């Protein structure tokens, strides 16, 4: 990033917050409906110092971590299977692509009936959200390995374990990492939404409670926190992606 673009990246949100604050000060909207940013910041500080925010973030992150790992492993395995086996692709491909078109949130009512609104439900929703993009990226990644690279392996009579570890996996890493990154932020968004709908703790539940008690400042504090965490997750995943694919032409 150039210094100018760095300044712009900070200045634009600051200007927006300033306009927001000015709109509140103008008195055109009731203070309870349009909460000023200063109030949101105060609430955020209070939530943080009471330890409440930390608890909600911890709960959400735990669900995200557990569900994401399970969903990613399942997605990798499934994507690789349908990419490598024509039979598996024929059997599960269309079904998978049809399910992929269903918003993950649409599974909430059914999952709530089966799993209740406790941890298993929220972990399951994260698993679902992570599974699809990762399976699809893995499928594309494995299918996208050029035939010519297999020919090189045949010429040098590379053994299967070497073919898998040294050629097949590195060749699919860029596509799979992109899928892992997209799945991570997607899973985070879906988790917050699910917590809004049905939960007893977590960032989404904190926001839902705020809404019910007409504490818009708490709702907005939740918006800020989920946005910042989502942004940090994406940045972190991008950094991992760049490090792992340094060999690529920049």
């Amino acid at each position: 990033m150039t210094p100018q673009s760095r300044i712009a990246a900070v200045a634009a949100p600051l200007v927006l917050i300033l306009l927001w604050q000015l709109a509140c000060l103008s008195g055109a909207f009731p203070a309870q409906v349009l909460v000023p940013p200063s109030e949101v910041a105060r609430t955020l500080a209070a939530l943080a110092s009471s330890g409440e925010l930390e608890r909600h973030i911890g709960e959400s992150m735990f669900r995200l971590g557990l569900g994401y790992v399970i969903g990613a492993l399942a997605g990798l395995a499934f994507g690789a299977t349908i990419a490598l086996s024509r039979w598996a692709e024929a059997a599960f491909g269309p079904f998978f692509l049809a399910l992929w078109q269903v918003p993950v949130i649409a599974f909430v009512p059914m999952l709530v009936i089966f799993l209740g609104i406790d941890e298993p439900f929220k972990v399951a929703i994260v698993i679902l959200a992570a599974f699809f993009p990762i399976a699809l990226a893995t499928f594309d990644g494995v299918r996208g390995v050029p035939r010519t690279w297999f020919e090189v392996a045949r010429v040098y009579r590379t053994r299967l374990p070497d073919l898998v570890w040294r050629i097949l996996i590195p060749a699919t890493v860029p596509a799979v990492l992109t899928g892992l990154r997209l799945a991570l932020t997607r899973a985070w968004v879906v988790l917050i939404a699910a917590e809004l709908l049905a939960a007893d703790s977590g960032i989404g539940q904190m926001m839902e409670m705020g809404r019910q008690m007409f504490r818009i400042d708490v709702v907005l504090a939740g918006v800020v926190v989920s946005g910042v965490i989502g942004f940090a997750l994406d940045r972190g995943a991008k950094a991992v992606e760049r490090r792992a694919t340094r060999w690529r032409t920049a």
Partner: protein
Amino acid sequence: MFPDVRSRPPAEAKAAARGALTISDLDKSFTIAGAPRAVLDGVNLTVKPGEFISIVGASGCGKSTLLRLIVGLDAEYSGEIRLDGERIATTSLDRGIVFQDHRLFPWMTLGQNIELALLNTDTPKARRAQIVADHIALVNLQGFETAYPHQLSGGMAQRAAIARALVTEPKLLLLDEPLGALDALTRVHVQNELQRIWMAQRSTMIMVTHDVEEALYLGDRVVVMSPNPGRIRRIVDVDLPHPRDRSAPLLHRLKDEILAELTARPADPANLVRLPGREER
């Protein structure tokens, strides 16, 4: 039984024991849109150990297909391809190939790419690094061991691919238009390198190219092929010792001859442009 080693330098005596290729009555056809289409038709060629053969011809004359058959990437053919008496049915570390695109793996360094070729050999692990270093030196890429392919120029990447192909010490090295994607100056440079490498290694080499000058500069013999289906049209002996001088009159005379042969062929009805309405009278 009684090899006469006195009359030859030792390196050549060693090479003489290996890398003899015989191709007899080779036919190959592909099925295109349900109909078989002959790509190679009645190819016969005997390559002496340590010989450098160039193959030239218009595109579609099956020269790349021929190399794929020899290297063993395609085993469906009729006729015989034998290396030192053994029929070729699959790939082998006895036969190396350099493709037009270098096909180095982008996530491996130059050293790792070359070492990959040694993975399925019984070369002791301790010796591998030395062998890789020797071959990097052979193609003059010292100092680039840890470079990634995207950091190499086209000519360097192609030399690296040559090093990878030679690291298993194949009896026979196949070169499928290895210099086709290089600019003119780099091309001349890598041609010189290739000649030097071949003189140092003395393994049998077969290079496909569509550059007649290149074919003559490097080849002991130049096989001229004609397309549809691919046939050997003529084999030209280039009776000049290596290293060669590019300005040798013989090379220029042969070049004119081969070019005339490749361009001024009798009109083949299949290749005529048919104008609409004139098909039938």
